C-alpha cells in the first residue's frame, strides 16, 4: 500500500489527490500544532536537492514524535524502532514524490503509521483487523459517571500522568488505539486517517468515538472526585 502511495503522479485515482489536497485542512477542536515551523518547507526543498544536512535536521526535529507514534501503534520497542527507521529511510527515498500538498510531518506520520501497521499485522495476524465492519451503537452508553475535579490532571505529577496515559493507550484494542493516536495525538484529519489506514471515514469515526469513550472511562478511574493519588 505504501509503495502504491509513492509512485509518480501518473496513475493515481482522482480521490487520492483530493485527499492530499485536504491534508492541511485545520482541525477545529485542537490548538495550533507546535510541530509546524516556518522553515520546514525550506529544509524539505534543500533535502530534495540532495542536502543531507537538511534532511538530518528534519529527522532531528521529528524523531521523538515519530518514535512515540510507532511505539504507541506497535506496542513493542523493537517493532517501533524498525518502523521508525524504515519510515525515515522511505521518506528520504521518496522525497521527490512529496509535493508539499500537506505538511511534511503529516506525510511522515502516514508513512510511519503504515510501517507500524505492517509490523503489528505481522505480529498479531489473527488478533486484529481494521477491515471489520463498523460496530453498532448498542453498547456505547458510558456506565461510570462520576464528578471530576476542574483540573484533574493537576493531581498527578507530569511523569506519573504520562505513565497513566501510556498504560491506558496500551490497554485499548489496536483498531481503536490507532485511530485515537492518528486523530487526537498526531492531529491527522478524519480523511487523512482513513487514507493512512485504508478504511472508510465512517469506520474512522466509529472507532474514534469508541476510543474516546474508553479513554474517558479509564481516566475516570484516576480523576473521579475523592480518588487518592
Amino acid at each position, binding site marked *: 500500500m505504501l509503495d502504491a502511495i509513492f509512485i509518480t503522479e501518473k496513475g493515481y485515482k482522482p480521490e487520492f489527490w483530493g485527499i492530499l489536497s485536504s491534508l492541511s485542512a485545520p*482541525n*477545529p*477542536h*485542537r*490548538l495550533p500544532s507546535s510541530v509546524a515551523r516556518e522553515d520546514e518547507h525550506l529544509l524539505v526543498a534543500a533535502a530534495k536537492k540532495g542536502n*543531507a*544536512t537538511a*534532511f*538530518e535536521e528534519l*529527522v532531528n526535529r521529528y*524523531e*521523538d*514524535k515519530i*518514535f*512515540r507514534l510507532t*511505539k504507541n501503534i506497535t506496542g513493542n520497542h523493537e517493532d517501533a*524502532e524498525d518502523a*521508525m*527507521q524504515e519510515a*525515515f*529511510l522511505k521518506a*528520504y*527515498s521518496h522525497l521527490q514524490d512529496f509535493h508539499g500538498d500537506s505538511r511534511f510531518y503529516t506525510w511522515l506520520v502516514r508513512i510511519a503509521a503504515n510501517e507500524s501497521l505492517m509490523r503489528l499485522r505481522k505480529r498479531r495476524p489473527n488478533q486484529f483487523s481494521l477491515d471489520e465492519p463498523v460496530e453498532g*451503537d448498542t453498547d*456505547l*452508553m*458510558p456506565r461510570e*459517571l462520576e*464528578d*471530576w475535579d476542574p483540573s*484533574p*490532571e493537576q493531581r498527578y505529577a507530569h511523569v506519573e*500522568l*504520562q505513565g497513566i*496515559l*501510556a498504560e491506558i493507550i496500551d490497554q485499548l484494542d489496536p483498531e481503536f488505539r490507532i485511530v*485515537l493516536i492518528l486523530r*487526537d*495525538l498526531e492531529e491527522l484529519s*478524519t480523511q487523512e486517517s482513513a487514507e493512512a489506514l485504508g478504511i472508510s471515514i465512517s469506520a474512522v*469515526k466509529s472507532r*474514534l*468515538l469508541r476510543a*474516546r*469513550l474508553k*479513554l*474517558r472511562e479509564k*481516566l*475516570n478511574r484516576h*480523576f473521579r472526585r475523592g480518588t487518592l493519588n
Partner: protein
Amino acid sequence: MNCKGVIRELSNYIDGDLDPAVKQELERHLGHCEDCTMIVDQTKKSIEILCDSKPVELPSEVRSRLHAALRRKIGPVQT
C-alpha cells in the same frame, strides 16, 4: 434527541463536525441532562490531556542506530 443520540454524535460534536440543526438539538438536550453534559465535558478534557502529553525522549542508542542507518543511506552529513 435522547442520551443515546448524544453519545452517538459525541465525537462529531467535539470535532465541530455536526450539522447546525443537529448541534442545536444536542445542545438543547445538554441543557437539561447533567449526565450527558458530564460525559461531554469529561471526554473533551480527556482528549485535551492526551493532546498535551509530550513524546517520550528517544533512547540515545535508538537515536544513534537511526542516524547510522540514515548515513549509510544518504552519505555523510556535513556539519
